[in-house]
C-alpha cells in the first residue's frame, strides 16, 4: 500500500513538472506567433495631461505584485487619487506569478492592468507583445532620473516597457567577525577572494567563504560583472548566444577555483539552514544584490553587528565594476482597459512618492533622487555596525556595467540550468563546458519557440 502511494506521489510530482513545462511552452508558442506587431509602438499616443485626467476619473485597476512595500504604496496612491481604486493581488512570487500571467495571457482573460516583472523576465513578456508600450505616454522624460543600466533593463528593443522599482547592484557582504578571527583581508580582486576562501576553509573546515550550489541568476550576474555579453537580441526574434564570450570564460575560470576545490558551501539559498549559517558565520560572505540587508536583518538576526558591506571584488582590482542581481519593474499589461490610470499608477509608484515609501520600508530604490538623498545615504544600521552601507551600495549602482541583455526566454532557460551547470556544481567539475551545454539547450528551446537563434 505504502509503496503504491509513494509511487503515485512521485508520478504526480513528475507530472507537475511536465505540465508546468508544457504550459510554459504553449504560452510562449502562442506569444511568439503573434509577436509580429509588437516591435512597433501600438500607436496610442497619450501625454502627461491625459494620464493626469485619467487619474481623476472613477476607475479600478488590478495590480499583481509581491513586493511587501506595495501595500503601503497603494494606500498612499489611493489617498492622493481617491477616484482610482487599486485591487492589489499577490498572485505569487516571481516564477509563480509569471506562470499565472502566461496562463492568463494565453486564456485571454484575467490579465491584470499592472504587473510586477523582474528585469530578467521582462524581455520575455515585452518581445511577445504582452506588455503595453509606454512610448508616447510622456514617460520617456524620466530617463535621466535613473541610471543607464536600469533604464536599459526596462527598454526592450528600443521600446519603453516598464518602470523600474528596485535594483540589485551587487556588492560584497562579509562577516567582519569571521574575517578578523581568521585574519582575512577584505578582497578587492577575485584572486584575493579565492585566496581568502582557501585560507578560511583550511583553518576551519566548517567555514566557507560563501555558499553557491548553482543558481542561474547568480551566474548571469557574475558573467555580467566580468564584462560578458553572451546574449544579444536584435529585432523581436533574432537571438545570438555566444558560447565563446570572453566574459563568461573569465568568470568560469575564476569561479572554478572555488567550485572544483569544494570551497563553496552547498547549502541552498533562502532555506532555514542558509539563514542559520549566515547568522552564525559559517558562511562568511555573500556576493549579492543591494536588497540583501533587510533579509539579513530579519532572517539572520544572530549575525547582527558582525556584517559589513564592501564593493564587489573585480578582476583587475582598480576599476569598480558591478552588475545587477535581481530587481523588479512594473509593466502595464496589454489589454488593460484602463492603461492610462495604470501608467499613472506605475509613475506614482516608481518615479514619485511610492519610491520613497519603498526605500523607507527597506527596499533598495532605483530612482536617482531617492538613491542619492541624504536621508537614504546617511542610514547607519546597527546590524552593519553603524556602517553607512547605502553609500557603498549607491556607488555600486553607479558602477554597473552597461550593455547587458537577457534572453527573451530567460525564465525557461533558468529553469533548465540545473540539468547542466547544476550537475557540474554537484560533481565539482569544470563549469565552462557545462555553461556551453546550458547555452546550447537554451538556444534549442528558443528555436522551437520560433526565434531565430544563432549559437556561436
Amino acid at each position: 500500500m505504502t509503496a503504491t502511494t509513494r509511487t503515485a506521489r512521485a508520478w504526480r510530482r513528475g507530472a507537475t513538472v511536465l505540465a508546468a513545462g508544457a504550459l510554459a511552452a504553449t504560452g510562449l508558442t502562442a506569444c511568439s506567433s503573434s509577436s509580429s506587431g509588437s516591435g512597433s509602438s501600438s500607436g496610442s499616443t497619450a501625454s502627461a495631461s491625459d494620464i493626469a485626467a485619467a487619474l481623476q476619473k472613477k476607475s479600478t485597476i488590478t495590480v499583481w505584485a509581491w513586493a511587501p512595500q506595495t501595500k503601503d504604496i497603494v494606500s498612499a496612491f489611493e489617498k492622493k487619487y481617491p477616484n482610482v481604486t487599486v485591487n492589489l493581488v499577490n498572485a505569487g512570487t516571481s516564477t509563480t506569478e509569471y506562470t499565472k500571467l502566461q496562463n492568463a495571457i494565453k486564456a485571454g482573460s484575467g490579465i491584470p492592468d499592472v504587473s510586477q516583472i523582474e528585469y530578467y523576465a521582462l524581455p520575455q513578456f515585452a518581445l511577445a507583445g504582452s506588455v503595453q508600450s509606454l512610448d508616447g505616454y510622456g514617460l520617456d522624460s524620466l530617463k535621466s532620473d535613473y541610471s543607464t543600466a536600469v533604464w536599459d533593463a526596462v527598454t526592450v528593443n528600443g521600446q519603453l516597457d516598464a518602470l523600474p522599482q528596485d535594483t540589485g547592484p551587487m556588492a560584497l557582504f562579509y562577516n567582519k567577525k569571521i574575517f578578523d578571527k581568521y585574519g582575512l583581508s577584505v578582497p578587492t580582486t577575485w584572486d584575493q577572494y579565492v585566496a581568502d576562501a582557501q585560507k578560511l576553509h583550511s583553518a576551519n573546515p566548517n567555514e566557507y567563504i560563501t555558499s553557491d550550489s548553482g543558481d542561474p541568476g547568480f551566474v548571469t550576474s557574475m558573467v555580467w560583472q566580468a564584462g560578458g555579453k553572451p546574449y544579444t537580441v536584435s529585432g523581436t526574434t533574432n537571438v545570438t548566444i555566444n558560447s565563446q564570450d570572453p566574459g563568461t570564460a573569465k568568470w568560469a575560470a575564476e569561479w572554478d577555483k572555488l567550485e572544483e576545490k569544494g570551497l563553496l558551501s552547498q547549502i541552498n539559498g533562502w532555506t532555514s539552514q542558509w539563514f542559520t549559517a549566515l547568522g552564525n558565520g559559517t558562511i562568511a560572505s555573500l556576493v549579492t544584490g543591494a536588497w540583501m540587508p533587510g533579509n539579513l536583518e530579519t532572517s539572520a538576526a544572530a549575525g547582527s553587528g558582525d556584517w559589513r558591506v564592501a564593493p564587489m571584488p573585480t578582476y583587475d582590482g582598480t576599476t569598480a565594476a558591478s552588475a545587477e542581481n535581481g530587481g523588479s519593474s512594473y509593466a502595464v499589461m496589454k489589454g488593460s482597459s484602463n492603461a492610462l490610470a495604470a501608467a499613472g499608477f506605475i509613475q506614482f509608484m516608481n518615479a514619485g512618492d511610492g519610491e520613497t515609501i519603498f526605500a523607507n520600508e527597506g527596499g533598495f530604490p532605483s530612482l536617482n533622487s531617492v538613491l542619492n538623498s541624504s536621508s537614504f545615504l546617511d542610514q547607519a544600521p546597527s546590524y552593519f555596525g553603524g556602517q553607512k552601507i547605502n553609500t557603498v551600495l549607491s556607488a555600486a549602482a553607479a558602477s554597473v556595467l552597461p550593455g547587458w541583455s537577457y534572453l527573451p526566454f530567460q525564465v525557461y532557460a533558468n529553469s533548465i540550468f540545473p540539468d547542466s551547470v547544476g550537475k557540474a556544481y554537484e560533481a565539482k567539475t569544470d563549469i565552462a563546458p557545462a555553461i556551453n551545454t546550458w547555452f546550447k539547450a537554451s538556444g534549442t528551446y528558443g528555436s522551437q519557440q520560433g526565434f531565430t537563434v544563432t549559437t556561436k
Partner: protein
Amino acid sequence: MAVTETARSGAGRAVRPMRRPARPWNPNKRRKSKSLTLIMTLGLIYSLLPLFWLLVNASKTENNLFSTDGLWFGGHFALLDNIRQTLTYNNGQFVQWFGNTLLYVVAGAGGATVLATLGGYGLAKFDFPGKRGVLAVVLGAVAVPSTALAVPTFLMFSKIGLVNTPWAIIIPSLINPFGLYLMWIFARDAVPTELLEAARVDGAREWRVFFSITLRLLRPGMITVLLFAVVATWNNYFLPLVMLDQPKWYPLTVGLDQWDAQSQTAGGSPIFNLVLTGSLLMILPIMVVFLVMQRYWQSGLTAGSVKQ
C-alpha cells in the same frame, strides 16, 4: 503485503517446537519476532520524525528557529502565541483559507463519493450496451494523473469564465475514476443480486432498493472512497495553483506556500514560524479524520480480498 507474509511464516515457526504440549494454535499469542519489531520501530521513527520536527519547530519564535537546535525544543515555548498569530495574520487569512479548504473538501470529495457510489452501483448491477466501453474508459482514466489534466482544464475553464471561482476546484474534484472503479468492484461483490431481485419482487422501486438496501451494504466502500477523496482534495496543490490567482479563494496548500515565499524576496518579511504552525494546524483535521474512520477504511480495503 510482504510484511504480513513474514509475520505469518515467523508465527508458523513458533508453533513448531516439539516439546511443547500440543495446544491449538492461537493467533493472539504469537511469539514476537525481534528483527521484525526492530524494522517496524525504525519505520515508525522514520514516519514520526518529521511530525516531531514540525511540532518542535512550531513551538519556536521566528528568531529561535534559526538559533536553536532544530530537533529539540529551545528558547521560549511559543506554540500558543504562534497559533494566535497564525490565526490572525493578515486579517485572519489562515481562517479564510481553512474555510476554503473545507468547502472544497466537503463539496468536492463529498460529491465525488456520491457520484462514484451511484455510478459504481449502476455499472455493477445493471446491464446496458457499451458497458465494456465504459470499463475501458474508466480504467484508462485511472491511469491519467489528475495533475496532467490541470492545464487543459484551466484553458477550458477560462473559456467559460470559471477560473478564479470555487467551481474551478470543486468541479474537477468531483471526477474520481479510481473511486468509481473501486465502488464498481465493491458493489459487484458486496451487493448480492439475489437480494436486489427479492426486493424488486416485493415491489420496491429502484430508488427504494438503492437507498434501503444497497446504500447500507456499500457503506465500507463509500467510506474508503470518501477517505481517498478527502485526502486528495485536502492536499490538492497544483490544481488550485493553476486555477486561482486571487488569494481569497486559495486553499491552505497554496496559501501556506505563498506565506513561505514571502521570505524569498527582497525586503520580504519571513514568517517561517507561522508557516510551520500553519502546517501543523493543517494536518490536525486530517489526522482526526483518519483516527475516527480508520476501522472503516481497513474493512473497506480488505473487503473482497477473501471470497465468501
